[in-house]
């Protein structure tokens, strides 16, 4: 009897110590975009580590590198969760690299905008941030009321457009097509229109950070940009406005994905849930890191100015469906290379 008791007690002690050890050893490896990591660390990573008693390993890089790494480690996943664009998430899902996300395990799921709940309709991703795209322009030089104005005579030689290879590129072409009354997914009509005007376009930019300088030097008077880049323009000592084109604003969404056969899926879900909570989404918004996907988030008007926020704004975004982009990307590029890049 005593021996049994001792055995039981020591067994329990052993289990406890194993339990404690595993809590300390729990490690979550995440793969994220490289920007604003200091802010993320302060707002999201450190508080989460304190809360879960686990260690967070953060890998950063551009999406191509990060997805290539997930694919290379397919048999023995290193990354537990990643944040990518909705389109990249679909590409990863099609390649069998992601796992379904159970909404029941996310207590904040019901607080998300409809658009963020299951962006690709496959249950494999959850949106955590939106961004609107429109046209930043010199209001003392031109007036912009439509995406079609980008190719107008007023802006000839004074406009920069995003390259088709950027996230803004297809979005701009899609809205140009809309303005032209041609919404075919192959984007042939808008690409041809840009091709006809290519000598009047100052450059097809790859990084929006470059545009502030071009605007400052009066090289350009207008360019389509994402809302995340707006603060750089609004601070300039020039009359620059954010257009509200009659076709609406373009937009995009970044999402969270769960790696297939990841070793820490429950912890990854716990992290996702924490990231989507009102508290964290508000802090990220207030620091202008990410616009929220959580409907409960409210911020001061001067902060909201630099974000994509509010039910009306989010629901009005013209986001190209990921499947459409994925299926047409190669066509767009070859069409662009023939009509524009030549």
């Amino acid at each position, binding site marked *: 009897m005593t021996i049994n008791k001792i055995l039981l007690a020591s067994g329990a002690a052993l289990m406890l110590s194993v339990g404690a050890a595993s809590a300390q050893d729990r490690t979550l490896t995440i793969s994220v975009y490289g920007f604003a990591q200091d802010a993320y660390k302060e707002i999201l990573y450190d508080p989460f580590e304190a809360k879960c008693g686990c260690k967070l390993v953060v890998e950063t890089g551009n999406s191509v590198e990060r997805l290539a790494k997930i694919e290379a480690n397919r048999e023995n996943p290193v990354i537990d969760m990643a944040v990518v664009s909705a389109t990249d998430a679909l590409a990863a899902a099609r390649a069998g690299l992601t796992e379904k996300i159970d909404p029941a395990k996310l207590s904040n799921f019901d607080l998300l905008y409809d658009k963020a709940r299951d962006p690709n309709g496959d249950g494999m991703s959850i949106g955590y941030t939106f961004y609107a795209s429109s046209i930043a322009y010199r209001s003392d030089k031109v007036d912009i009321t439509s995406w079609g104005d980008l190719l107008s005579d007023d802006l000839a030689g004074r406009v920069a457009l995003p*390259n088709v*290879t950027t996230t803004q590129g297809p979005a701009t072409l899609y809205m140009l097509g809309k303005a032209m009354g041609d919404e075919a997914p192959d984007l042939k009509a808008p690409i041809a229109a840009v091709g006809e005007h290519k000598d009047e376009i*100052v*450059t097809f*930019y790859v990084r929006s950070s470059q545009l502030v300088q071009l605007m400052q*030097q009066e090289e350009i008077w207008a360019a389509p940009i994402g809302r995340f880049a707006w603060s750089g323009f609004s601070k300039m000592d020039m009359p620059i406005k954010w257009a509200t084109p009659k076709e609406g604003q373009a937009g995009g969404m970044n999402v969270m994905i769960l790696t297939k056969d990841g070793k820490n899926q429950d912890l990854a879900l716990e992290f996702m849930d924490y990231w989507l909570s009102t508290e964290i989404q508000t802090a990220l918004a207030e620091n202008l890191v990410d616009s929220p996907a959580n409907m409960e988030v409210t911020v001061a008007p001067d902060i909201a100015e630099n974000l994509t926020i509010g039910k009306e704004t989010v629901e009005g975004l013209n986001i190209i469906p990921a499947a459409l982009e994925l299926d047409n990307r190669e066509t767009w*590029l070859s069409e662009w*290379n023939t009509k524009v890049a*030549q």
Partner: protein
Amino acid sequence: MFQNRAEAFALVLPAAVFAGVTFLVPVVVLLSEGFRGADGWTIQAYIDFFSHPLNRTVFVRTLKLAAMVTAVAAVIGYAAAFAIVNLPPKGKGRMIGLVVLPLMISPVARTYAWIVILGRTGIVNQALTSIGLSDEPIRFLFTETAVFIGLLQLFLPLMIISLVSALENMPRDAVPAARVLGANWFQVFWKVILPLTREGLVIGGTLVFTGSMTAYITPAILGGSKVLMLETLLYQRVTVANDFVAASVIALILIVMAFAANLLLKRLATARNKR
């Protein structure tokens, strides 16, 4: 002898193993990608690459710009180098320091400076409009001219340094002797200086040509996607289309062109030598 060889082999082995593992193997693996087909080895990827009009345009543009930059760098380089070697030692050191100085500044910073200089409100356009050469600012940015200027500025120091050391190794009295014997300045350059400094020209030319062909930052910033070069096309193929085959094709083209340029310059130099 054998023992010497073994010793030499042993001495070179660590470096060879390091270069082999970290450089040769990855390069071979990367380049072989371009020759791999569904059923065995093939050059189909190369045929596909050159069948696209855009790729041909980019190839010709890269070759043309690199050749122009090399030629202009050689002309300016000779003049500058000749002036430098004829300076007193103190001045020579200072001038070489000035030539080398830009190499110590990141090419990103240097290239960004050109955006300001060549811009609509930049110093070049201000000068052009104020002296009446142009009614309104000329658009330099994102044109082949901008890439050309950027590349020339980037690589000219390499040409000057190569030519300075070549001119310094030339016999001091070769030029005065030629002059005394009645040669004009063109003959002095063509028949005396050029043959005696060809090694420097080959080295400088190869560095400038290879550098111009493989530069990424300058064409990316000053040319953008309107003036695609092979390097910027390579980047586009990888990041957008995830097309490592085309990237490997471009990489091999760049390597082959670099070797070809070196051989061609050497051949030109020795051809002059035999005469």
